């Protein structure tokens, strides 16, 4: 994580394949000089995508065809997915406590009632049989039935995915646009007051716990000023497709989106800033200026497009992470999405639902990593040609 701006390993330059198409391994590099927290952000995304990282270690040498490259990446992703599926079953079985006893706790339940529940949940079967059922279920797209909701887990996830996409999609767009825009201006006016303010503010928000920030916003704008609603996605009884309904959803959306954006946009800002700084000493900018272009034009037309390249992959990685980050925000703002579903499943503990959301969240991150690899290949002609 301590790569100086001036490259000490010139040999890397001759192997464009190495690392360049490998965001899973070390996407944090561009940001590293002096921006520790921002460096950790991508690193944590890397952790969650640990398995593909491990597979990626044997990067193909330059010159591999696209098909080979693609298959290799796909293989890595598939391996991670299998690991996730196996882990998803056993990790939650290892949780302490018996779900049925927890449900029965403090309730006047007879042994016969408890036994009936065990058999309804399929917990009376041997673990290996349960595992087999689970595997067969996953292959056929059946993730089991939730203990609490008494509904198929796949249907539940389908139902709750929408609100999560609305929330994280909005937050992602705003965070990316805001982060990249502030980042390029910060870099361009390096060490100016604007740079210092923008960078430090973003880093302060970055280090704030999402949960805490959410509650503070809730207290100020919900409880005290009473400008915005304190939870949920829509006032019960409103038609979401009426004008009032849409406005209602937007007002419910503001606080959760602000919390999510505030906590993540620093990552985009720091990456953009660092990559643009890299470009700023390049000769071609001098050439551009010599042609008589204004500073703005030099920045927008020449420097930024090149600086954008490394950021794109990182952005993709973070979209996956953002969906996972929704768990906290949804729990604070009672947003009826996947994150809240997961939160409640842990409280249960609702094993099939936990397994299901775990597999889905992991799949999203794995797919995003794969997409990052492939998109990079397309965006950078050198990697494509190589």
């Amino acid at each position, binding site marked *: 994580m301590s790569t100086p701006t001036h490259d000490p390993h010139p040999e890397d330059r001759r192997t464009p394949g190495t690392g360049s198409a490998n965001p899973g391994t070390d996407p944090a590099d561009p940001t590293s000089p002096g921006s520790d927290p921002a460096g950790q952000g991508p690193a944590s995304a890397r952790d969650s995508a640990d398995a593909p990282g491990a597979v990626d270690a044997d990067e193909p040498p330059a010159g591999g065809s696209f098909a080979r490259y693609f298959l290799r990446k796909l293989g890595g992703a598939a391996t991670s997915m299998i690991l996730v599926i196996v882990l998803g079953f056993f990790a939650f079985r290892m949780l302490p406590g018996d779900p049925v006893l927890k449900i029965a706790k403090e309730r006047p339940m007879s042994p016969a009632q408890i036994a009936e529940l065990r058999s309804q949940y399929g917990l009376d079967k041997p673990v290996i049989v349960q595992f087999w059922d689970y595997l067969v279920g996953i292959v056929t797209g059946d993730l089991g039935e939730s203990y609490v909701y008494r509904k198929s887990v796949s249907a539940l996830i389908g139902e709750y995915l929408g609100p999560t996409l609305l929330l994280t999609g909005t937050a992602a767009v705003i965070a990316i646009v805001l982060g990249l825009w502030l980042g390029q201006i910060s870099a361009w006016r390096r060490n100016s007051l604007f740079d210092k303010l923008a960078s430090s503010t973003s880093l302060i928000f970055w280090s704030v716990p999402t949960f805490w920030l959410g509650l503070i916003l809730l207290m100020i704008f919900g409880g005290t000023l*009473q400008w915005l609603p304190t939870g949920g996605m829509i006032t019960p009884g409103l038609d979401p497709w009426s004008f009032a309904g849409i406005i209602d959803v937007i007002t419910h959306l503001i606080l959760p989106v602000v919390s999510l954006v505030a906590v993540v946009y620093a990552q985009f800002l720091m990456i953009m800033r660092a990559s643009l700084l890299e470009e700023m000493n390049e000769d071609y900018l001098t050439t551009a200026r010599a042609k008589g272009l204004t500073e703005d034009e030099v920045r927008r037309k020449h420097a930024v497009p090149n600086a954008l390249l490394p950021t794109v992959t990182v952005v993709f990685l973070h979209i996956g992470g953002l969906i996972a980050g929704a768990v906290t925000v949804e729990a604070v703002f009672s947003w009826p999405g996947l994150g809240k579903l997961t939160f409640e499943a842990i409280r249960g503990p609702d094993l099939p639902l936990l397994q299901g959301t775990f597999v889905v969240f992991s799949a999203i991150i794995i797919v995003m990593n794969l997409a990052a690899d492939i998109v990079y290949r397309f965006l950078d002609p050198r990697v494509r040609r190589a």
Partner: protein
Amino acid sequence: MNHRTRRKTKMLTSHSMRRGWQRCLAGVAALALAGSMAASPAQAATSEAPASENVLRIATDGFIDSFNPFTSFYLVPTNTFRYMYENLVANDAEDGSVTEGLATEWNTDSEGKVWTYTIRPDMKWSDGEPLTADDVAWTYNQMMEKEEMAVANGSLVENFDKVEAPDDGTVKITLKKPQANNPGQEIPVVPEHVWSEVDKPGEFKNDEKSVGSGPFQLESYEANKSITLKANPNFWRGKPKLDEIQYRYYTNSDAQVQAIRSGEVDFITGLTPDQFTALEGADDVELNDGHGRRFNGISINPGVADAEGKEFGTGHEALEDKKVRQAIRAGIDTETLRKQVMQDYAQPATSFIPAVYPNWALNPDDPVISGFDVDEAKKLLDDAGWKEGSDGIREKDGEKLQLRFLTDADIPTEQSTAKFLKPWMKDIGIDLKNESTDADTESERTTKGDYDMYFSGWSINPDPDYQLSINTCGQRPDAEGNGGTTQDGWCNEEYDKLYQAQHVELDQAKRQDLVQQALAIHYEEAPSVTLWYPNQLEAFRSDRFENFTKQPTDGGAIANQVGYWGYSSVEPVSDEEATGGGMGAGGWIGIAAAVIVVLGGGGWLLSRRKKSDDRE
């Protein structure tokens, strides 16, 4: 390393990059839109916002599996059933005594084996159909005959031999063994004409337009969003004054506090002392510090064993001696704990039946009750053969008196209790180690008997029989948790005899006396130390509603009652201010945000397009 690989391909056109971006953004937006559409499947029918003056909005975060009274045992559905379905007999608001429900009167044969109920004539279900004794008998028989219908309340009909309805106005329950506790309590009676038509009643969700006999009927339910109940005009006590009750989902109790401050909900319950104090002085919010039907205590491992007496677990041997357990009680200053840890939001406790049931709770004047007494504690430990060592910790046969105290790390009151206990136990020569962990680990370890002491708590129903029963020898589960349920893993023959005696004693005064004796034995044996009866802390919007009924009526709680009293009497505050049907600040902020997004997005796209035109 990405940046290093970039060479002089500076001509990667910004144009294509931008187009890519636009597509990407459009894609995300479309995805989000599609997602939100999928999430709200055509519910255009409910296009009208509720007439809010007469809708009581309650914040909740409880689990709901269904609203099927035969199968659901979660707290929110169970509480809702109490409003949806009248029982054969109810528990009154004053002190939880048995009072008339569907039955106006009841009597039993001399030994308490055959119970006969007279059903109130001319009652109607919420859909207008007549409600008769047949409905009662049908409901009970479903639970007795079908396993899948006994999931929630099977234990209540375990002792039933047969239930008959000789005529429309009479229900006769014949029990297997006599019992003193009225068997008609707490079993929701459903309409036969609706439920007998259901294909698989065990899987019926019953989550819209329910038909019942209670004051409110379930109108609609949206998971993790809201539950709407409508007043039942045919309720035999008369139609409630409220039109609707609407539960709204708030995952987070701090958010619930903000919601009542802002007036988005009208009632919240289950506040922590800190949240409760924070609401003091909030505009238009009235607080209710209600005496609850719960107890908290410290369960002491008396050497747990299964029903056959086979011991298991890792409890400290010293605790098998009741003198050591009594010493622990004498060393705990429960009054200080109640005031400091619970900030006085709890009632002083004696035994495990809380003071809100004055008929049953162990009388504080009972001679068995001993207070906080350090000298007595030391004396008891001396007598038990545990002598003080050089470091102040007692030992016996070279073994030190070191005990583990299992607490839930997420619950502040448990952690504070542990902090108080450590020095107090040190004073009497016990080295107490606080092992704080998560609730799941705690539950697993207590099941296995892998503890010395742990922080426990139960909610108690108006009749003490169930809680007394889980202190008997035969109810102890094995190390896997199979067999029964136990409060403290304790067993005492004398107690068991008293339990049996009260179980069949039909004379209320005599039964009370037997219960007192049983509780006194439990107290003296000290398998647990009851610390306090926590108050249920609640708040409601006094500018909108008044006339909540508490249970017990004098100083009790509004939510989680055994019965339908809490909200049934609620009335809107009469001099309603027209709060205006328009949008609040939130609406305007929302519109502003939408406008900014649209304008900003449009402007941005426009400027991009202009730029690319320039460039070509």
